[in-house]
């Protein structure tokens, strides 16, 4: 039985201070996300309730209660302190979805350091860029990924220790140290660091059009937003079993795969496995998952398998479905009604917003294809892209923007305050997506207003790909743009001009694809490479990606008057 208020009532009565009171927080007091997700839940009488039901892809399974999670995170935090890690230091978590990843994030927060989760599929260049920028002092990883760290450790002067969580029988080198969390004696009297509202909490790297990825710096006060949006938009109820598909290397995996649900005392199920429709449905049915937060790419992959496969499993346990990462197309919403008997509710937000900001609120009419309406307490609008003033009237295309003032907006980009300031126009935080608003106040995605590529719900910056492409011995110059894709919405396409002496070939094409996959990540790997003689450039020699992108999308090429050769 849902206790989430009606959208209209929530909008009318909403007050962030009321949420703070619900959390027992008062302005100026201590607030520590790690404590809220563990100790507070135990103090509420839920110590024995399962916090985490974890399954590996080979079928191994472990369950941890909130009290066990409290003790393990205390123990982990105390161990890090003994290792010499202090408050404010950046501690990277670079591993698959193991329990140690989830407990590690909370442990780092409990001891006042900054958690920097990174997607474990990142290659060594992507990893180095982010660790170097953050001045990370400790990386927590597993033997499967430690070799990527070994190859860059000499170029990371701030890195003091590399912690390997499954090092039994594995020879360690240099700054590496083993951690067997389950074998450590429980820390009996760990004192949670007294972080306050503006204390940095999590650093998530996100891509933009220009330059290398930027470290979006969140603070402990973000909890207030993440708690209430998880409770209401995901419609979390005490008896729910909740599954978030997202990897904690991305913001959804921390805001709604760690903080939001656990701050609400909800049991989470986690599957450390790649995509497999049969396994996913089996996981849902066996664990009686009732709330599922997924992504359009995953939903479209499930669609390819057909609704019949879903109906062959006992999925009556599913009560509420939500989606995030990229716009959820109307067909996917309609298909989910057919397959699961209920629609996926699309949500819109970004790494920088820290929480859902435009949502299909439970109980609200779902308009398939729309991202919904602003969450209570959030002022959203579409702005004129030149004047940055709100567009009045329905159906006008503008850029999505938000009035600052909600708790989880990032406080800066790490070492890049100028880039952060650049996100604000005329008093609005500008998201970088274009949309329209209809007469009922529903937002409808139109497209990006920059060159960032949204592939499978992850933003990939063209600059990072182009820089890596230039490191390949055959590549003279390149441009990376988005190409439409029926499953991932967009994929990376690279236009490559070769150096003299190299000829286009199928083998070279594959070699370059694998080169980028290993250096950066599978997400950044061009799924198509087009070899060209030259790239479109301005008269000053700057590559014009928008012309290439427009060609891929079949859109008008726009003003070409500045092209070097028209």
């Amino acid at each position, binding site marked *: 039985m849902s206790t989430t208020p009606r959208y209209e009532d929530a909008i009318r009565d909403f007050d962030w201070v009321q949420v703070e009171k619900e959390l027992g927080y008062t302005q100026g007091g201590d607030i520590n996300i790690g404590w809220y997700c563990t100790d507070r839940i135990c103090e509420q009488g839920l110590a024995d309730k399962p916090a985490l039901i974890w399954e590996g892809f080979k079928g191994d399974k472990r369950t941890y209660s909130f009290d066990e999670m409290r003790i393990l995170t205390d123990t982990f935090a105390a161990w890090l302190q003994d290792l010499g890690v202090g408050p404010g230091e950046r501690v990277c978590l670079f591993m698959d979805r193991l329990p140690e990843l989830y407990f590690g994030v909370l442990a780092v927060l409990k001891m006042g350091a900054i958690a920097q989760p990174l997607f474990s599929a990142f290659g060594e260049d992507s990893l180095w860029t982010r660790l170097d920028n953050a001045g990370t002092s400790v990386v927590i990883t597993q033997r*499967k990924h430690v070799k990527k760290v070994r190859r860059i450790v000499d170029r990371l002067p701030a890195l003091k220790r590399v912690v390997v969580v499954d090092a039994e029988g594995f020879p360690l080198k240099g700054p590496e140290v083993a951690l067997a969390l389950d074998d450590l004696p429980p820390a009996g009297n760990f004192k949670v660091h007294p972080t306050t509202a503006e204390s940095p909490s999590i650093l998530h790297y996100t891509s933009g059009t220009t330059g290398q990825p930027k470290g979006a710096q969140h603070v402990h006060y973000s909890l207030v937003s993440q708690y209430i949006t998880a409770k209401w938009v995901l419609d979390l109820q005490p008896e729910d079993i909740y599954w978030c598909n997202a990897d904690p290397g991305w913001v959804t995996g921390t805001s709604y795969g760690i903080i939001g649900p656990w701050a609400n005392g909800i049991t989470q199920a986690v599957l450390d496995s790649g995509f497999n429709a049969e396994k996913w449905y089996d996981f849902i049915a066996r664990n009686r998952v009732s709330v599922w937060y997924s992504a359009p*790419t995953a939903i479209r992959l499930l669609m390819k398998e057909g609704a019949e496969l879903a109906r062959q499993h006992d999925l009556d346990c599913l009560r509420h479905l939500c989606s995030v990462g990229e716009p959820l197309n109307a067909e996917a919403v309609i298909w989910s009604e057919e397959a699961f008997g209920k629609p996926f509710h699309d949500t819109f937000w970004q790494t920088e917003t820290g929480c859902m900001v435009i949502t299909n609120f439970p109980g609200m009419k779902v308009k398939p294809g729309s991202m919904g309406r602003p969450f209570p307490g959030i002022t959203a609008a579409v702005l004129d892209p030149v004047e940055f003033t709100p567009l009045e009237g329905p159906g006008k295309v503008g850029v999505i923007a938000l009035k600052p003032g909600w708790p989880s907006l990032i406080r800066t980009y790490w070492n890049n305050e100028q880039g952060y300031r650049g996100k604000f126009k005329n008093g609005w935080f500008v998201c970088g997506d274009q949309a329209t608003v209809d007469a009922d106040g529903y937002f409808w995605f139109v497209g990006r207003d920059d060159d960032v590529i949204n592939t499978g719900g992850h933003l990939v910056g063209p600059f990072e790909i182009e820089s890596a492409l230039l490191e390949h011995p055959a590549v003279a110059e390149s441009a990376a743009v988005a190409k439409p894709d029926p499953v991932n919405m967009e994929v990376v396409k690279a236009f490559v001009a070769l150096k003299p002496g190299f000829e286009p070939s*199928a083998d070279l094409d594959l070699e370059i694809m694998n080169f980028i*996959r290993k250096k950066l990540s599978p997400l950044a790997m061009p799924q198509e490479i087009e070899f060209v003689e030259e790239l479109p450039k301005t008269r000053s020699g700057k590559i014009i990606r928008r012309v290439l992108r427009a060609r891929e999308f079949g859109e008008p090429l726009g003003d070409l008057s500045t092209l070097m050769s028209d």
Partner: protein
Amino acid sequence: MEDYKQTILDYVIKEYLEDDEDEEITFDTELISGGIVDSFSMVSLKRFLENKYEIQIPDADASPEAFDTVNSIAALVDRIKQA
């Protein structure tokens, strides 16, 4: 078919497991659900098969299930080669 299997297995080990020498994989190891090859990397594996065996694998046939083990990949290649 056996030739395909060994060639594909060798390629997967070389291209996707260079950092994980501990992982022992066989013709039946789950590549996609096991996280060795993800849905994005599948594209480069598909490209390898197309180049190596001079075939075109239709997108509809390049499903995560068809690419989940060396055995299933080899069966797919064999089917397309014989068509």
